[in-house]
């Protein structure tokens, strides 16, 4: 093992300045240009600034509406393109971040809390904690046992299908992997592509891996695998890829050239039979067809774990370590924790569910009601592969590796060996 000698920051200050010159300017452009949303006069807590990644129309409108209901302070929202925000998060949090910013629960939150880039909000949790289940609190807690995150909305992953197609052909949701395979085979003979699939963007295949892994090896294995504590050459991981390879003949071919939106379209156009994706797949359905959309949770593989875990990524808010108005920011987080605030968002965005267990579900669409029911039945809620592990591992190792598996499903052993080597380089 090579000797590690720490280098002081001063030595490479120039390097840092140079390396970050350009991205910092880019990030600066984003964070210094205030969004058109004008400052609203408010109560006595001054001005709270919000850094938002809600650049899509519906999430943006829902955040605007929720913030409008906050009267204790003046608010100013700075909206940055979703992916840009995510990619620049490091530089953003070390530069001049807004007081409150949008982020994700779980490992992705803990990573930044551990680096000292987030403000401890355990006192806020003492006030609003009653509104959340233990699972949500766990996902908001850093490795030091303090809370850093307020869950706002979330969406479950499941297998989606069109009720009208299934009724016509007489399909019923499968309960086990064998039934699932039999159903897929039947769809094939009926001229349907059984499983819609797309992985051009690299992340959708993570959803398939996650669910196969949790069904086969359970939630605890998922967590320790993501934390880098298990070996990827373990027979349990190989089992997951073997199962997946067995299902590959039912997947929509040419997946690496297709986006999830296109795969969602194929489900809407009744060319494919079912699609494992997040509830946001509803966006690809015209308003009139949304009631025709239904789902089932991925069937049992290992009876020891049944269907006790699902992916249901939680979106929410954090306070940056450099926040100027911590008082105001905490008041705003309490506002976000209100069931009424979350209900505004779920009303505007049919692909999301309110994180608070006290939220009013009477206004939910049929799909949202089913989603909430699915989550309440799950014992374990995972955050999705790229939110449950280190960002560098997810983006530079898992995306190329899963794409390579999708391209050549037979090369499992060499692939797992390569993942394990790269994992060892990153988690050290």
């Amino acid at each position, binding site marked *: 093992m*090579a000797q*590690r*000698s*720490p*280098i002081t*920051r001063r*030595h*490479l200050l*120039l*390097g*840092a*300045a*140079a*390396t970050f*010159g350009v*991205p910092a300017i880019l990030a600066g452009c984003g964070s210094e240009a205030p969004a058109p949303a004008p400052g609203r006069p408010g109560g006595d807590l001054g001005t709270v600034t919000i850094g938002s990644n809600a650049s899509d129309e519906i999430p943006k409108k829902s955040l605007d509406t929720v913030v409008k209901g906050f009267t204790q302070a003046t608010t100013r929202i700075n909206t940055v393109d979703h992916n840009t925000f*995510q*990619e*620049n*998060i*490091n*530089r953003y949090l*070390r530069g001049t971040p807004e007081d409150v910013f949008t982020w994700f629960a779980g490992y992705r939150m803990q990573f930044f809390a551990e*680096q000292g*880039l987030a403000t401890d909000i355990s006192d806020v949790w003492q006030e609003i904690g009653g509104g959340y289940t233990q699972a949500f609190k766990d996902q908001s807690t850093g490795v030091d046992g303090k809370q850093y995150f307020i869950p706002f909305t979330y969406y479950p992953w499941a297998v989606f299908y069109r009720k009208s197609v299934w009724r016509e052909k007489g399909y019923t949701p499968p309960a086990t992997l064998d039934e699932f395979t039999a159903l897929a085979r039947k769809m094939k003979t009926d001229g349907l592509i059984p499983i819609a699939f797309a992985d*051009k*963007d*690299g992340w959708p295949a993570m959803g398939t891996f996650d669910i196969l892994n949790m069904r086969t090896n359970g939630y605890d294995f998922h967590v320790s695998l993501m934390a880098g504590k298990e070996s990827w050459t373990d027979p349990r991981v190989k089992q997951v890829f073997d199962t997946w390879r067995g299902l590959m003949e039912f997947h929509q*071919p*040419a*997946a*690496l*050239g*297709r986006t999830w939106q*296109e795969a969602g379209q*194929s489900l809407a156009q009744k060319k494919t039979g079912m699609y494992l994706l997040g509830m946001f797949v509803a966006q690809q359905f015209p308003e009139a067809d949304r009631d025709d959309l239904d789902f089932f949770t991925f069937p049992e593989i290992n009876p020891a774990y049944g269907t006790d875990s699902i992916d249901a990524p939680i979106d929410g808010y954090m306070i940056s370590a450099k926040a100027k108005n911590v008082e105001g920011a905490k008041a705003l987080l309490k506002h976000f924790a209100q069931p009424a605030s979350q209900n505004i968002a779920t009303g505007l965005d049919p692909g999301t569910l309110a994180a608070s267990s006290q939220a009013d579900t009477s206004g939910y669409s049929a799909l949202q009601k089913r989603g909430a029911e699915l989550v309440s039945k799950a014992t374990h809620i995972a955050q999705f592969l790229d939110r449950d592990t280190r*960002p*560098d591992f997810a*983006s*530079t190792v898992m*995306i*190329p590796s899963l*794409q*390579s598996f999708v*391209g050549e499903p037979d090369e499992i052993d060499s692939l797992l060996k*390569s993942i394990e*080597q*790269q994992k060892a*380089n*990153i988690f050290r």
Partner: protein
Amino acid sequence: MAVKTRRYSARDVTILVIGLGVAIVVNVGLIWGPTLASVGLSGTGWNGIGPIEWIGGRNYHDLAAEYPPFWSAVRNNVLWLGFLGLVATPFGLFCAVLLDRRLRLSRFYQSALYMPVVLSLAVVGFIAQLVYSSDYGVLNAVSGLSVDWLGDSSINIWVVMVAAAWRHVGYVMIIYLAGLKAVDPALKEAAAIDGADERQAFFRVVFPTLRPVNVIVLVITVIEALRAFDVVYAINKGRNGLELLSVLVTENIVGEASRIGFGSAIAVILLVISIGFIVTYLSQLFREER
């Protein structure tokens, strides 16, 4: 014998300091500083937030031995250079020669071939998706094939290079066209009188007089091949068969990953390759001038 020393006035020194100093500061601050910093960082492990750790050559070992995208990126960069240099550039020259012969409608062909040059490569990437997409692409619709042009990692680099060459051909053509117009017609006439046929006249007489243009075109081709980025990034973020060194640098440093030491190591490799071409080119240039 008295040695004559030149004395500089205070004004001379001031002008010297300002004149040279500004240039040196700019040069060091914007070119050598970042370059050396990258080289320095490439020997460290740093996530952009925590402490910087010196890990020696481990990044280089990791990327050469255990990072599969690296070798596909090297291969793709070489392919890119070869394709532009051996296919697109000669084809651009060929078009220029044909157009120089004042065909009917030559203005029209000239504009049609030059048109893609005004598009940025990112836009070319979007157009390529409209053509090559397996579900809604023009190519599959017209030809009746069902090939996954962009998703199949054994063919996607080729079709993307065709898209990049589409733009490169127009660029090269316009430069050669300007060069050909400047060739003295008397040379061609003299060659014809000496009994040279068309081919001989072109390869023995016209082409050698184009030497300065050839150098410019060569430099442009190499630069285009090494900086290729936007077209693949627009298509699939440079993954799954479309890896390029420039993309890997960005993916590791700028993205959420922040593997700054590792990304810098890839950047250093790209630097070494570029320097190889630059040194060859400059030494060639200086040798001639001497």
